[in-house]
């Protein structure tokens, strides 16, 4: 015991994650080194100690509570026995991943400048070397000593007074920290930033809305590009094979009134492929041209390989908020296949290039027009997952329609710039399902029905499992058939992505429910 006490601090003081470890994350499946574990966005773990045969014995190992009642939405990072999480209102914490004991806490004051559309939520940190990177709720990027929590540098990404905030986990690629930004409901102009990991100096900024004279600028009427939003509030992915950063973009602003921004509004509600060294655009794919339904495409895309017409293709796939599943060639950016994965009533389908064919009378009106899916979408920011073991893509699908309302939109910096909203469709009960889709075509293989729509992410493991949540419950399904194998009532709403890791030879599964982080292990 004395020996252990003596040794433990030494071991914990050795967090060090050079880029090569993140690049080769599959070589150490017990760690969770980047937002989606590895760069593919698959949120699949090769760990199999917890499997279909013993998952029913999963029990709480430890918990960590936030002092605020806002939801903990962080996807933890686990490296060298330490877990790094973020908590409301503006906190980063390092925990001993085995016992849950707190190692250090970084607290940041939020000035009166903070706006934020949707609560003081944050989805986690990134790590490189012995530094942890945090995109703060007040739109700073902060570098912290991973072993002590001491601030190494702190730079302003954008002005919180006009609505910018940091909610997504940054992504480390090589020697840079890539960070998106939130604030799409305030008529800001979205961007993706890259910072030098050592110094915090900004290396490049990619504006998701082209400036006057740049290609794509013609897709915004008048001066509307200045307030066009297209924010980047969920972590993207990186493809080392093609050296490409792939990142989703949010809805154009104002959300539901497109009158002042006639045109396709590039690159809103799109996927952009960037050179991670320069931030230069390689290609883009717009899921919802001239979006008037608030269908952000920010959710983490997934890199997967699939066989198309007998040929192996490198794909990037996504079940979009607009109700369609898409597979795209990630080398060329060209559309491969797509189909609805939930009920949708706004488009007759996708054309050969993957462009949706919008039906008449499907734009918001003052009285409200009933459309499927609702503005929450067929799915949302929470993670989908792909299991190489089953070859299936899993999504938390939401079956819900809503009346889309168009309102006036008047821009005032720092105020909501929405131009409408939605009214629930009281005639129907919304419901949800975990759906397993063919990764190339999106064809449904099975579904596990949920009483109400879920707002939480999924994870697959080599143990043949899909972990998911519904309301206040956390559960595990058989990844090949969708049978329920285990469930846990957490007593607080789950709006987070699960992860799994191993310490001292034992596998754990972590999920946050409301303001509590729960960590499970098999006894």
């Amino acid at each position, binding site marked *: 015991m004395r020996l252990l006490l003596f040794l433990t601090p030494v071991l914990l003081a050795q967090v060090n994650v050079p880029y090569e470890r993140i690049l080769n994350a599959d070589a150490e499946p017990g760690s969770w080194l980047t937002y989606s574990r590895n760069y593919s966005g698959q949120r699949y773990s090769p760990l199999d100690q917890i499997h279909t045969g013993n998952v029913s014995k999963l029990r709480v190992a430890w918990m960590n509570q936030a002092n605020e009642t806002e939801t903990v939405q962080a996807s933890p990072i686990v490296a060298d026995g330490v877990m790094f999480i973020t908590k409301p*209102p503006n906190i980063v914490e390092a925990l001993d991943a085995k016992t849950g004991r707190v190692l250090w806490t970084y607290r940041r*004051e*939020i*000035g*009166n400048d903070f706006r934020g559309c949707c609560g003081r939520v944050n989805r986690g940190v990134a790590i490189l070397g012995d530094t942890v990177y945090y995109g703060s709720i007040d739109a700073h990027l902060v570098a912290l000593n991973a072993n002590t929590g001491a601030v190494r540098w702190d730079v302003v990404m954008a002005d919180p007074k006009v609505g910018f905030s940091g909610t997504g986990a940054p992504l480390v690629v090589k020697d840079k920290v890539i960070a998106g930004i939130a604030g799409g409901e305030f008529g800001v102009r979205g961007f993706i930033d890259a910072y030098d990991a050592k110094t915090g100096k900004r290396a490049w900024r990619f504006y998701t809305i082209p400036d006057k004279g740049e290609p794509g600028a013609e897709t915004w009427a008048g001066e509307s590009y200045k307030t066009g939003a297209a924010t980047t509030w969920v972590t993207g992915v990186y493809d080392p094979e093609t050296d490409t950063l792939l990142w989703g973009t949010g809805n154009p602003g104002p959300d*539901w009134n497109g009158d002042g921004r006639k045109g396709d509004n590039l690159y809103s509600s799109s996927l952009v492929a960037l050179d991670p060294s320069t931030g230069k655009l390689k290609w883009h794919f717009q899921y919802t041209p001239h979006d008037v339904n608030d269908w952000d495409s920010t959710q983490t895309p997934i890199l997967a390989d699939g066989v198309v017409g007998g040929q192996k293709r490198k794909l990037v796939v996504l079940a979009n908020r607009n109700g369609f599943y898409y597979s795209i060639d990630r080398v060329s950016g060209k559309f491969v296949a797509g189909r609805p994965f939930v009920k949708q009533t706004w488009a007759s389908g996708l054309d050969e290039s993957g462009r949706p064919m919008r039906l008449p009378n499907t734009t918001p009106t*003052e*009285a*409200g027009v009933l459309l499927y899916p609702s503005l929450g979408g067929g799915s949302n920011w929470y993670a989908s997952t792909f299991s190489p073991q089953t070859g299936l893509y899993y999504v938390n699908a939401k079956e819900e329609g809503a009346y889309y*309302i168009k*309102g*006036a*939109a*008047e821009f005032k910096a720092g*105020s*909501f*710039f*929405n*131009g*409408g*909203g*939605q*009214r*629930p469709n*009281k005639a129907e*009960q919304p419901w949800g399902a975990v759906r397993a889709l063919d990764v190339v075509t999106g064809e449904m293989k099975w579904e596990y*029905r*949920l*009483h*109400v729509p879920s707002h939480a992410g999924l994870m697959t493991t080599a143990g043949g499992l899909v972990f998911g949540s*519904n*309301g*206040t*419950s956390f*559960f595990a399904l058989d990844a090949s058939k969708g049978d*329920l194998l285990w*469930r846990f009532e957490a007593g607080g709403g789950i709006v987070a992505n699960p992860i799994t890791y191993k310490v001292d030879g034992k596998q754990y599964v972590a999920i946050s429910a409301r303001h509590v982080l729960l960590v499970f292990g098999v006894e």
Partner: protein
Amino acid sequence: MKLALFGAVVLAAEVVKLPTGRADLAAGRKLYENQCALCHGQTGEGGRGPVLTKPRFARAADDAALVRVIEHGIGGTEMLGAHSMSEREIRQTAAYARTLGRVAIKPVPGNAARGAELYRTKGGCAGCHDAGFTAPALQGVGSRRSAVYLREALLTPESAVPDGYLLVTAVPRSGGNVTGVRVNEDSFSIQVRDASGKVHSYWKSELAELRKQRGVSPMPSYRGTFSEDELTDVVAYLASLKDSE
């Protein structure tokens, strides 16, 4: 933290000035008719939601409170927040809602005392509603629902099933059906309260069948049971059940 607390105090004391211009009121009227009238009635006469043709609103003593109620809704009630409205639209709507109170309130006709008697005796309402086991409690129903709505509820109860109220029959594999009101439900389990007040809890995997009777009310129609005058009196009684203000 101190700063945040200070900020909250400042907000609570904020004085809101609602717009008074003709264009703002016209815009507010349009917003009201599209988004509020479904429950509160086209002219604020009430319905599913409370009557607004009155000088004072129970939940919005001043204009700042009214703006807050429109923006965020009222927790634990059917009043939703208007997240779709801009700050300006909320104020326009609030301004228009205040004008509704300039119409004189029509008193609800009927004899409330006689209605109370009918409620307990001939109507047999108390057996379900006062115990509160299978029927919603009616405290404050006069604040939430208009007289027109209450009358309709007595004649066609299925038109007035509250949100979240659901009559279910659970059929366990082991036998012994239970019919009652759903207390809670998720993907995995359901809790059902029977007429005696007992709560039955089932894992869904234990059930052979779960019948949900959406839009069905266990309440009988009082058409034919009550005379026209009696109906008016019962409505007067229900309308008199106000929240303490």
